[in-house]
């Protein structure tokens, strides 16, 4: 073919190649374009996801507060003047708030309207007043100007999530409600502030009082249990399989099991937790210790596989040198191989922990979906975790929970990104090429 090509241009192979070349190049360009398209599409999905979540969630870091003048009426709080904490804590603070609202809007007379008026403020305002008085009983009898959180509907209105142009019957807030609120805005009694509650409170049915602190503490306790169980076990398994295990059926069985466990759907681990840990061992339901155990079993294969890779990358010359100067097999592994493999193992562990932090499904099975207001104080207290909190809030009908959910997702993603960056940093910093 090469001989005839230059002489007979018309009917040669080269001409046939030439004829098809344009089409083939077009095909090539098209194929390349598909490749670029695929990557662009996935990156677009990614940026859309992040943009979508953060545009919904960033408003949750601020909260609307309303300024009111509260008169701490002695007759209402502590008519006998005893000042004992029992009386102070059970006094009718809601009444104080109601009366100060009435004094701002004196022309609201009808019972029905008054009831609506009271909904301007969050029920949390009552607790705020009680706390103030309990901390400082001298307040009684004085009048104070304080900022209290607004109800979530007004918070949404303030942030522009409620469309004022909609017909009245399609809005959660009626014209009258909006007029009251606008009156407050005009008198400079409304302000958006940093939402500290979101980072310090537990869960609540009222969106403006709900926070992620409880879930965060639950997540940390659960991860702690996961870590102390699966790091030693994972490293020990990897060391045994890589350094000591004889090649036989038994170790083959272990390896097959590890590979399979790595691919078992996480929800199955939830079934295991329910049937074995709760029904047989009677571990406390909804507790971090139970969640940590289940997640540890789930994360174990990841850590084992990563640790084995790390051990494999330590060159045999290290082992031979150590054995050569008379160290025992165990001393070689403990004092020479393991320290060199440790960065790789830690990287794998952090990635496994990040997986465990984002896991939800198995925890639903073992009762960590309960509505829990209190901050868990120990590993046996009922708790929930961050992803489950996101799941619970995502199910709530209130509009205000949408922004809370997105904000909680932002916090969760921030944790995950931090953990993964740490893993990448560790790998870059300590990775050795032999």
């Amino acid at each position, binding site marked *: 073919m090469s001989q005839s090509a230059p002489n007979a241009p018309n009917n040669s192979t080269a001409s046939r190649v030439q004829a098809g070349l344009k089409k083939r*190049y077009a095909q090539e360009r098209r*194929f390349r374009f598909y490749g670029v398209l*695929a990557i662009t599409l996935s990156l677009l999905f*990614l940026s859309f996801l992040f943009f979508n979540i953060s545009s919904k969630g960033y408003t949750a870091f601020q909260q609307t507060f309303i300024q009111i003048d509260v008169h701490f009426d002695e007759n209402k709080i502590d008519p006998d003047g005893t000042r004992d904490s029992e009386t102070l804590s059970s006094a009718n603070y809601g009444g104080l708030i109601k009366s100060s609202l009435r004094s701002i809007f004196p022309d609201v007379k009808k019972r029905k309207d008054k009831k609506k008026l009271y909904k301007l403020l969050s029920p949390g305002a009552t607790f705020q007043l009680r706390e103030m008085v309990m901390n400082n009983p001298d307040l009684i009898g004085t009048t104070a100007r304080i900022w209290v959180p607004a109800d979530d509907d007004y918070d949404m209105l303030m942030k522009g999530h409620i469309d004022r142009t909609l017909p009245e019957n399609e809005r959660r807030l009626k014209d009258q409600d909006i007029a009251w609120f606008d009156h407050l805005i005009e008198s400079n009694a409304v302000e958006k502030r940093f939402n500290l509650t979101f980072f310090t409170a537990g869960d609540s049915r009222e969106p403006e009082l709900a926070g992620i602190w409880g879930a965060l503490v639950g997540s940390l306790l659960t991860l702690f249990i996961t870590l102390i169980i699966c790091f030693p076990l994972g490293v020990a398994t990897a060391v*045994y399989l890589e350094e000591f295990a004889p090649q036989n059926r038994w170790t083959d069985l272990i390896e097959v099991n590890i590979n*399979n466990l790595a*691919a078992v759907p996480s929800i199955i681990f939830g079934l295991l937790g329910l049937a074995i840990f709760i029904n047989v061992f009677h571990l406390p339901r909804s507790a971090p210790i139970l969640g940590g155990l289940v997640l540890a079993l789930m994360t174990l*294969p990841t850590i084992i596989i990563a640790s084995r890779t790390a051990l494999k990358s330590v060159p045999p010359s290290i082992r031979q040198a150590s054995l050569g100067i008379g160290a025992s097999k165990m001393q070689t592994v403990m004092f020479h191989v393991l320290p060199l493999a440790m960065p790789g193992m830690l990287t794998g562990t952090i990635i496994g922990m990040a997986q465990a932090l984002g896991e939800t499904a198995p925890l639903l099975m073992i009762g960590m979906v309960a509505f829990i207001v209190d901050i868990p104080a120990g590993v046996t207290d009922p708790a929930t975790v961050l992803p489950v909190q996101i799941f619970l809030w995502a199910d709530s009908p209130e509009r205000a929970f949408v922004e809370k959910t997105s904000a909680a997702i932002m916090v969760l993603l921030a944790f995950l990104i931090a953990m993964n960056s740490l893993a990448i940093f560790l790998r870059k910093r300590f990775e050795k090429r032999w």
Partner: protein
Amino acid sequence: MQTSTLILLLLTLTAIAYQFGKRRSLAIVSGKVKKLHSLPGYYGYLTAIWCSVPALIIFGLWSAFESTIIAHLIVSNLPETLQSLSSSRLSLFINDIKNLANGGITSGEVDATIQSAANHYNNLRQISNAALTVLVLGTAIGCAAFAVKNISKEKRARNEVEFSVKIFLIISSTIAIFTTLGIVLSVLFEAIRFFKIVPITEFLFSTEWSPQMAIRADQVGSSGAFGSIPLFAGTLLITVIAMCIAVPIGLMSALYLTEYASPKFRTVAKPLLEILAGVPTVVYGFFAALTVAPMIRDYGAFLGLDVSSESALAAGVVMGIMIIPFVSSLSDDVINAVPQSLRDGAYGMGATKSETIRKVIIPAALPGIVGGVLLAVSRAIGETMIVVMAAGLAANLTANPLETVTTVTVQIVTLLVGDQEFDSPKTLAAFALGLILFMITLTLNFIALHIVRKYREQYD
């Protein structure tokens, strides 16, 4: 004494035991380490192991059986009439006693019997606690003293320590087997109980799924229907949609990254793609339910289509996005494993890059790619949160992606979240579904790993 204090105390004792052992070994040879069989530290470790391990075993056993034994003691102390209650009523009664003892709320009236039982319970718990403390600390100190006393010049401390470490390693490595065993047993036993109530043929071949059981026998639809076909059809539908998104995009990304992209572009794009895999599934679920599903519904309405707001399409698309990096990194591996000589051969024949990819690389990497896709399918089948949040609960037998379907994992979650009664087929059905799910994913993984491994051997 509290558990945490006890454990802390035990740890302190262990540290002290280590020092004692080390000092003792040095004292025996009056500081001449050479005369010892092992380094002094090993004598310390040996003492520490003797101090902690037996005490921990006792502690573990005690904690495991404490509640059962105490409950038994309380029951045997109850009046005859109460003892003859059925086991479930009795366990309810014991729960009441425990709640009362802990200062909690009880389900019924507090009478003298239950009050005295609660006091008895508190008493027993205090005794048990004190006994545990004494026993654990006693064992720790006793065993440590025994170990210290046994230290001699010829004692092979290093070998003994290494032996116990090895035992620990071996025990750890069996955890994987016990986990698998635990999964199989837990799912299997409950599934068998389920199949005793609902015949397995009905479960596998009937097309009606409505697990709601009536409370009274004479209610309408008093027996739930447990035909799992609609669930598997729904799972399949969503998986197919997900694969339609993930396989082309994932495969093309992998091909572009390995064959076309410059190393610089690859180092940026690959980790970015991996981020998609690191996003928690609950985030995808939220995204699917609140953004993608309404988008698809509105777009459908714009085109005049009637799209359900919990359409299979929304869940499938988002699941597909989630699986893209999974497919792409698995295919990346296999494409990289295709030897360079095959590419060079094709280029030498005058093939363009895309022709080389389509005619040489893909056929050569096909088994590996198929294996990767199978693994991705098994992920999609087992994926839970996206479908729980974005797919529906109604079990429709349909192939229309715009309608609502439900999946196996959604049903497992809905059946088990909330109250569980382990004698009702409703709860047990979840375990039967779990069994089938486990078997399907296991088979898929097994085939996939087998294909991938077999293919790798060809070129290595």
